């Protein structure tokens, strides 16, 4: 891993797309940088978004400048991150309930924003996507695509490392010291081992997104974030191979995105206090399905694997929106903002990047890097738009069937498939573990897609836990990530399954409920997963009690 940089030029806080992009940008400009995230990379908003590489069509009416930013970055990412992108294309479809004026204005608004938009005949649209409602009136094709976040983040970090930077997961910033107006240092705690490290950077760039307020508070800065929680539901079948948007003013449940082997319907918007609020309710889920049915009439019969939430890092800028601003989350601009805390709050050595969306991460990072460089008196230009990310240059890598095709080319068969649903082989898993070292199964999930298929970890989790145990010599106490480890495969298993089950709670019906019952039956019934001395011979525990 290289030497620890205790006095880097820049400390980047937050390992989502923005932070990773910023680290890459700064490292390419010759700065020595360190990135820390309190958890694994991409566990914040970046890892919980809809999966969409926006064309910008969604914003053409209400937020044309955001739309323009989207399409420009869309094209940049297609050049530099082709390997993370499934080129699904996108369509905007008008249902009978969608307002004519919006629909009629749509192609013109796209053109004005520089977004390629062709109208395609309804019959052709329905031929390509037979699951769409036959009642649609018009359809427009736009260059939406599906963007895989963790590979993207990993590639940015890899490039950053290649330019001398470092990035550490599971390092939480617990204190920021001040010396008058100046930030004098940062205390970072290893979430696995508990050890503390002191970092004294010249500049801190907080890319903590929805958590930016919490980070700023450590420095004594008031930064009010309005986390905008959105619920999404994951369909087991890819009923569409194209991104489908509803052609109307943006609302809930009006986008369906094919993502690898699933399709994700979203989303909702609810302003919340706590960016870690990840509650979903079945009412929200039902509302999403009701909306989605306008696009896909058979939706109610299709199997939902899980519901999950992401929080948008919305920033309510008091200068732009007064204190009487409405609570309508959708009214808050999605544009990103660089906050210079020296100018804004009189605190030197800290900038925050808030707002924005994953599609424009690179641009956000570029502007944040420009701000950092300005503070450090440097004028190196940004080079992130020109160079493909390492290993991401080939667009042919990322199509739906690639894992199956590659596996079959290697001979096929199930003998070494650890996660059969998502075709994760033992070799893939071991490569990930070699790269990452000790980690949790959830880390493996992000890195390989293990556990993301219909069985939601039912068959693969224990194999992954066992492989981790096989690799760690007996008696070795590793710096395990929270959530189970090599030394406690059973704990790893129950933590991961509990986590997966959380997502099933709001969608517990039909085949997915049956799947949950079958998997629980196997692990509790056949494997005795919860069995321990506290269970037998100890207190009998009665019903767990109602859940809220």
């Amino acid at each position, binding site marked *: 891993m290289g030497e620890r940089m205790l006095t880097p030029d820049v400390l980047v806080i937050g390992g989502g797309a923005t932070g990773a992009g910023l680290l890459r940008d700064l490292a390419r400009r010759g700065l020595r940088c360190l990135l820390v995230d309190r958890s694994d990379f991409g566990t914040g908003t970046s890892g919980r978004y809809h999966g969409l590489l926006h064309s910008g069509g969604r914003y053409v009416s209400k937020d044309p400048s955001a739309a323009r930013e989207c399409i420009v970055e869309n094209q940049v990412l297609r050049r530099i991150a082709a390997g993370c992108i499934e080129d699904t294309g996108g369509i905007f479809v008008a249902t009978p309930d969608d307002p004519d004026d919006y629909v009629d204005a749509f192609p013109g608004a796209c053109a004005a924003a520089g977004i390629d938009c062709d109208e395609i005949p309804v019959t052709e649209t329905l031929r390509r996507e037979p699951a769409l409602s036959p009642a649609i009136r018009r359809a427009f094709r736009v260059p939406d695509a599906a963007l895989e976040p963790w590979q993207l983040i990993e590639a940015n970090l890899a490039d950053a490392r290649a330019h001398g930077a470092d990035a550490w997961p599971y390092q939480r910033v617990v204190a920021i010291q001040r010396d008058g107006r100046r930030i004098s240092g940062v205390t970072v705690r290893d979430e696995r081992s508990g050890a503390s490290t002191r970092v004294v950077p010249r500049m801190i760039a907080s890319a903590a997104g929805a958590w930016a307020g919490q980070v700023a508070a450590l420095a004594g800065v008031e930064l009010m974030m309005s986390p905008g929680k959105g619920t999404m539901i994951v369909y087991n079948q890819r009923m569409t191979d194209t991104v489908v948007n509803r052609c109307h003013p943006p609302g809930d449940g009006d986008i369906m995105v094919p993502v690898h082997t699933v399709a994700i319907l979203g989303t909702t918007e609810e302003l919340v206090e706590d960016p870690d609020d990840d509650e979903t309710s079945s009412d929200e889920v039902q509302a999403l399905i009701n909306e989605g049915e306008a696009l896909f009439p058979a939706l109610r019969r299709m199997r939902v694997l899980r519901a999950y939430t992401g929080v948008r890092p919305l920033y309510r800028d008091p200068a732009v929106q007064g204190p009487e601003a409405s609570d309508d989350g959708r009214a808050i601009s999605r544009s990103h903002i660089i906050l210079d805390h020296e100018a804004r709050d009189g605190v030197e050595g800290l900038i925050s990047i808030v707002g924005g969306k994953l599609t424009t991460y690179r641009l956000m990072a570029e502007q944040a890097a420009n701000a950092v460089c300005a503070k450090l008196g440097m004028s190196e230009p940004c080079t992130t738009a020109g160079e493909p990310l390492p290993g991401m240059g080939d667009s042919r890598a990322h199509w739906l069937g690639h894992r199956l095709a590659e596996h079959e080319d290697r001979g096929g068969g199930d*003998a070494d498939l650890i996660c059969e649903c998502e075709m994760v082989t033992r070799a893939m898993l071991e490569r990930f573990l070699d790269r990452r070292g000790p980690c949790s199964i959830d880390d493996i999930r992000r890195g390989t897609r293990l556990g993301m298929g219909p069985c939601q970890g039912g068959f693969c989790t224990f*194999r992954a836990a066992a492989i981790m145990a096989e690799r760690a010599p007996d008696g070795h106490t590793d710096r395990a990530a929270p959530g189970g480890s090599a030394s406690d495969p059973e704990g790893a298993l129950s933590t991961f399954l509990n986590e997966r089950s959380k997502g099933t*709670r709001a969608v517990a019906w039909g085949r997915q409920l*049956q799947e949950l019952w079958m998997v629980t039956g196997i692990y509790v019934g*056949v494997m005795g*997963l919860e069995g321990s*001395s506290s269970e037998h011979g100890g207190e009998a525990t009665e019903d767990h009690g*109602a859940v809220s």
Partner: protein
Amino acid sequence: MPSADAVVVGAGLAGLSATLALAEAGARVHLLAKGHASTHWASGGLDVAALPRAVTVREAVARLADDARHPYAILSDALPPALEWIRGMLQHEGLPYVGTIDGPVVPVPTSIGATRPAAILPAAQAAALRPWEPGERLVVCGPGGFKDYWPHAIARGLRRAGAWWGSAGPERVDPLVVELPGVRDRLNLDAIELARLFEEPGWRCDAFAAIRRALIIGGLDGPGRMALPAVLGLDDHAAVLAEATSELPLEPFEVPLTPPSVPGLRLYRALRAAIVRAGGRVQIGQAVVRIGVRDGRIVEVAMEAAARQFVVRTDMLIMATGGIAGGGLVGHPDGTLREPLLDLPVEAPPAMSWLAREPLAAGGHPLEAAGIRSDAELRPVDASGRPAGPAGVRICGSLLAGQRYLRERCGDGVAVASGWLAAGAHRPSAPRRDAPQSLAGEVAG
């Protein structure tokens, strides 16, 4: 259309028990099922009851039977003879079981390195039931390249304090991975394929020799037992098990794996063979989609065939369609839990309370106790105890409300006892000479 004295829907343990009991009693019985579920996923043992601080199965059954809402309140008398009966059947088919309901409930190893409570197990798993003597070792042995059995992880789990509930476990637990001939080179490998390999006499001779060598090289001798994955043969299981027992220096026992369950498959095939031998009909593949009722009574059962429906006339229907896992109870997006064949009234907690936050925590999900209420003759009733559905119906197995089979480990006991009891409701036209007494002479409907 064909006719039958009784139709059983569902080929789980409850349905198989009911069908076999009916066939034995001379009834013309059709077993219809749309596929296989719990039999092919389960451990192959007979889980009758296990509760904290209940030393024997019988004690646990008695405690559960004290709860008027538990199926054992109705079934506890039928349970011992039903178990005796099915064990006799299985013994006859070459699949003997060890342990009784008066024996202690003990921890037996599982393939994730935990232990589960058990008392009655098939012979291949039975060596795990015996208490561990001081100085005894356990060798967890599996083939290299088999992704469903991981000796190191299992051994690590079994060495944890508390894995054996505070009672004495083996003094030493050691993992042993053995290269068995050709296994690593295979493109495809699951438990069934390994079981078939073990059925080849030449291969298994080499395999046991390889295990013996590995034990010596690993210095793993001394008194003890060996935990093998449950792959010791399928149709030829008895011969493979006998050879394993005689060829291996440590007494072997099988540990059940994730599905496909080879022990579960053996149990299914044994009961199916007994049913066919007794003249019963088993038809697997199409879903029952309609129950014909006339004048408030069952008259026919219809399956979805390739064209039209395949209809069997009958006036006795035994529903053993399973709980949520088996597909006999279906959760709907509107928050209701329904029984799809006859829309029998289902007792379930309100929609918001179905699932606990931590599904693997001790209490389990509130939804686990959901099911259909029955009277003492296993006729379905509604919440106020009034008969529900048409006459001629009996329900059994996981359909029955009030059991939490995962926490109480009562699923197999309820299945066998209720299947056997439900079958007894039929008065056969020509009882066999050796039909058990309790099956003759009960009034149908």
